[in-house]
């Protein structure tokens, strides 16, 4: 396949960025999108020029490192996959493909397609945990958890923290990310003790980081590689309201 890549280049957080066209030739349709980017970088470096900076790690859709806006869509045209799980057979010969970084004020660009997502870690740090110390614990089977509840909690816990939800949202809201963790823990008996404190602190941190509000558009869920449903945001809002109305943690 031969393609034209129109890629966002930006030297640093305070520099102006621009789109630059690169021809890419001789790509195997079974190559992954990131392998195509590797090949392009090899071609660029063979000429002695600076490559396009982008990030990836596991390249199997679980670590959440990669994340590109491809032709205007976070993680590209295919549903329920991360950028690293796109294959060139999903594109066509001769196509012009625009590649941009996640765009949100809370995700400053580090270089080219690499952004700083540390704000997401700070949201988790504000309460995305169950406060138990390492040490002796009750037997793991001491508290039975209904299978459908455990499965549901898993669906929420499957979030990979890539930030596509923020990139896809017109408000750059991190509601889907935050709500996934709030839901995961609110659904489990272990999460009940800190239920109110958790949601309040996490939502406050999310606002503090400058992420926008949710206005029920649903682009986040459509872009999510792990199919976190919009329902989790509804649960977060309900949990937040509950926490405000019933301030102590007795559930």
């Amino acid at each position, binding site marked *: 396949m031969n393609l034209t890549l129109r890629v966002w280049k930006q030297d640093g957080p305070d520099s102006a960025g621009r789109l630059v066209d690169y021809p890419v030739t001789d790509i195997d349709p079974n190559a992954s999108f990131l392998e195509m980017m590797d090949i392009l970088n090899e071609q660029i470096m063979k000429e002695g020029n600076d490559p396009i900076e982008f990030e990836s790690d596991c*390249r199997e859709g679980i670590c959440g490192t990669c994340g590109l806006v491809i032709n205007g869509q976070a993680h590209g045209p295919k549903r329920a996959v991360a950028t690293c799980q796109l294959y060139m057979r999903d594109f066509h010969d001769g196509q012009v493909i625009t590649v941009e970084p996640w765009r949100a004020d809370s995700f400053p660009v580090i270089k080219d397609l690499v952004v700083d997502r540390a704000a997401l870690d700070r949201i988790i740090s504000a309460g995305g945990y169950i406060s138990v110390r390492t040490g002796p614990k009750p037997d793991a089977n001491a508290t039975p958890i209904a299978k459908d509840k455990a499965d549901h909690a898993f669906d929420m816990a499957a979030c990979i923290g890539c930030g596509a939800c923020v990139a896809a949202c017109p408000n750059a809201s991190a509601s889907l990310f935050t709500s996934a963790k709030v839901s995961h823990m609110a659904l489990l008996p272990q999460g009940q003790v800190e239920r109110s404190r958790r949601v309040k602190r996490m939502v406050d941190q999310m606002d503090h980081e400058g992420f926008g509000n949710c206005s029920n558009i649903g682009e986040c869920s459509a872009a999510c590689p792990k199919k976190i449903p919009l329902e989790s945001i509804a649960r977060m809002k309900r949990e937040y309201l509950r926490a405000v109305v019933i301030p102590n943690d007795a559930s």
Partner: protein
Amino acid sequence: MAIELNGKIPDGPLEEKWDRHKAKIKVVSPANKRKFTVIVVGTGLGGASAAASMAEMGYNVKSFCIHDSPRRAHSIAAQGGINSTKNYPNDGDSVWRLFYDTIKGGDYRSREANVYRLAQCSASIIDQAVAQGVPFAREYGGELANRSFGGALVSRTFYARGQTGQQLLLGAYSALMRQVDEGGVELFARREMVDLVVVDGKARGIITRNLVTGELERHTADAVVLASGGYGRVYFLSTNAWNSNGSAAWRCHRRGAAFANPCYVQIHPTCIPVKGEQQSKLTLMSESLRNDGRVWVPKTRQDSLANAHNIDVSKRDYYLERRYPSFGNLVPRDVASRNAKMMTDKGLGVGPEPQRLAVYLDFRDAIDRLGVHKIDERYGNLFDIYKEITDDDPHQVPMKIYPAVHYTMGGLWVDYNLMTTIPGLYAVGEANFSDHGANRLGASALMQGLCDGYFVLPYTIGDYLGSEELKPVKTTHDAFNEAVDSVQKRVNVLLDSKGTRSGKARHTVLELYRELGLTMWDNVGMARTEEGLKSALQKIPEIKQKFEETVFVPGSSDSFNKTLELGMRVHDFFEIGELMARDALHRDESAGGHFREEHQTAEGEALRDDEDFSYVAAWEWKGEGKEHELNKENLVFENVKLTQRSYK
């Protein structure tokens, strides 16, 4: 001067060693813990759990990761599960049985005391994870579910669909982030450890490269814990993540930490086969698939190109079930991989022409028996991954699989306290060599990482901190200056190479990295020979020299520069690869994943030589351009009898 290898194995009967040891070792008082600073390098299962646990105890912890977030560490990609002796299925599991399976699975090349402790702690890990809210799979009654993994006759593997590593890592990460919030852990993301600082013979700090600004930063500590994973990416193509590397461990090695059993590499039997020259990494298909999937190849080469479902059962060779009737498809990984290679060597493989490097993993019978719904519940996300990558649907056609590099059992030598040969430097998880011998059983890596980090290191490190006199060290100390200078020199090798200075790539980093990877796979891979290993020992330094002279690294050292990062890691991989080949050549026997073609039974199984090789090979760095020195820790077996492994 040889290194003294004192394993510090406690006295007493096997089942009492750990308790007796805990009762004897020094404890640092709560008031004094806050006076100590511990550096933890890496935030995977071992690193995150160790950092969180030590901060909870009161130590000042500095946690470093090369990713943008601690949650990205490669433990996240582990699929299948975690072993534990809970015996919930009531099938007769016990601490002894897990211990025995692990020792036997490792082909009798690991320490009894360490492995027994691992089995003892395994039940606590599940309790801990459940308390953190890790959503393990459950039965309808609300109890935890189990499945089987290779090398065991009991179902002791806990799992969270095919994302067990992710869920356990997020559990450890949440504990870590809680400590960040409470001020017990200072987190340094996007930092790569580029050197260890040793003062008066003790590990007292590290040099990191800030991967955003390129700055070389100095950090002091009273102890350093290495949790930086394995070195499997020396092969270029592997199931390891793009950023996984061996440099942090290698830098410690060059500062005096012995490197143990570097040749023990796990080649995982069920990976999606290599598909072309542009491929950048390989993807694992979890071992759990062998619970229900049946491995086979056609009996004749003519049939190997036919549509799999048109091949009559009588014309299929379910070779694992045929050769190993009691374990069947659930033989350990090294055995399954070797058998796949035997089949493809005979020309019976089913992959693309001309190599035909694949065998079938078939779910037809399982779907007939259990229905699509049940199979999807167990393996749905794995089937999805397979389909995304290959465009084939495993419900309709069998998976094609082939072995690929997955894990390294070798690593920094550690004693029973997990301390390396440098006082004050510890290694946990895949970064150490301690528990898996010559072959790791499936679902045991998560167990070991968390056991080390939650339940072993936080206790044993107190023994060191409580008994050593550690004078304050400043970042202006000569040892820090010397370390920073040496890192700068290494950076300059890449930025001053003829390739870089000519302004046009003579060779890119990836070109030479692939060349190293192929050399390693061909000569230090699944089957090794004296001739092949000698040729690797000749070729690797040649590629390294070519790298130093002709590699092209664009940009500068004081900015975000992925090519420079990778270049520095690859530069170390040449030396790691060379030591792996040297170790493999010296180990003139077969054991687990180390298969020397010269040493096999009539049936093609690995043939050990216990008389001459029942020891840990701990290699000592002797300086630039000098040969490594071999030190031996003899393995003493008081509780199990060494036999030829049999899974028949």
